[in-house]
């Protein structure tokens, strides 16, 4: 599940919601449900981790269109 750690908060949260909706629909095979459930737990944990660790980043847009540290 290394792919989850690479996800942005938005992506992870969207995946989590999609997955809940899929489980809700309820017509998945049991092993697929188990797989989704496990992935969902990891996604939720990843989201929480990103929320806890978030720090505002600031960049400056220069006249030439380039970005620099603020």
């Amino acid at each position: 599940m290394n792919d989850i750690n690479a996800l942005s908060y938005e992506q992870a949260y969207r995946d989590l919601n999609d997955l809940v909706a899929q489980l809700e629909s309820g017509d998945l095979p049991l092993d697929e449900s188990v797989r989704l459930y496990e992935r969902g737990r990891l996604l939720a944990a990843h989201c929480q981790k990103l929320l806890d660790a978030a720090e505002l980043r600031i960049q400056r847009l220069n006249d030439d269109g380039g970005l620099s540290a603020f």
Partner: protein
Amino acid sequence: MLDASDHALSVTDLTAQIRYVLEQTPHLEDVWVMGEVSNLSRPASGHIYFTLKDSTSQIKCVMFKNSATRQIVEPQTGQRLRVHGKVSVYEAGGQYQLYADQFQSAGGMGDLYAQMERLKAQLELEGAFDLERKRPLPPQPRKIGIVTSPDAAAFQDVQKVLRGRFPLTLVILSPTLVQGIEAPSQIVRAIERLNTHTDVDVIIVCRGGGSIEDLWSFNDERVVRAIIASRIPIISGVGHETDVTLADFAADHRSPTPSAAALDATPDIGDLREAVRHAATALQVYFEDRLIAESHKMERLTTALARRDPQMMISGARQRVDELHIRLGQAQTRHLRRLRERLVGLASTLNTVSAESVLGRGYAIVTRPDGSLVTRSQQVKDGDMVTIRWHDSLHTARIGEDSSERYKRSLL
């Protein structure tokens, strides 16, 4: 009387005295003067040099950079302008001049307001402020463009709100002056740069509170049109709650202050945490429901399966065989009993048929002289004497030749 030459002043002293006289004349240090702009010069230093004149007189004027950047009216050659400042002397040039600190168009602020109202009416006519033009703000902007001055308190306010509320976002500051005659063109470029070079999800155009003159750049037609032309949705947060500029009308969303703009642009991280918790709970609930449903399904299947268990079927069959076996035994017993009963009946019938009644039907009993019954031909031989008993008489007889062969032949 002293000779004047004995008391000659240096040029510097004289100039200083002239300067002293001018600067001590009260109304000359705080004066409004109206005239037409000519000889306008704006070197890179940022100072503005020009001459104000009317039909008969003229006066040299200078406005230094620190004042120039705060102006909302940009002087143009030939323009009639009201200029405020103080009269003093430029010693090196031997010139008295007006040190200007404020421009107003000839009609004063009233003129500017009237101009703004005309522009507003024109933009309304064009549909620039129509609600249908307003674009929705992104619920969770990954990147937020900020058009403001890096040094302004407004930018600090915006950062503070974003840190506490939605630190997941990336802030891209597009720096610009936010007041003075250079501000409108810089604000326009700052908005255009964000549109051209970045993929920010929303732009906040903001400036802290100040006088109406300080905020006037946000009534500039160029700024208003740049906001309308922006590909990216724009939130305005200019001045205090009570200040409303044309930029506010043009923006997709108007916030009363820079802090409010940052707040309106973002979700609260507490709500996000709650949403994640909610999703995690929903996940748990649906999964557990699923497991319960599966286990119910299993129970039903187990029950159904148990009814079809081969062991059970064999025992059932065995039981049925046993039953049949028992019934068979009983049937046999009954049958034998019936047979026995019939046999007993027959025997008694037999007993009742006496030898007499047999003799009566034409049979005879043959006995030897010792009284034993002759039941087979081998028991007698030719010449033996036997007794024959019919039902009504007794006779003695001698056995003749054996005619069995003849008898057998006659049967053939």
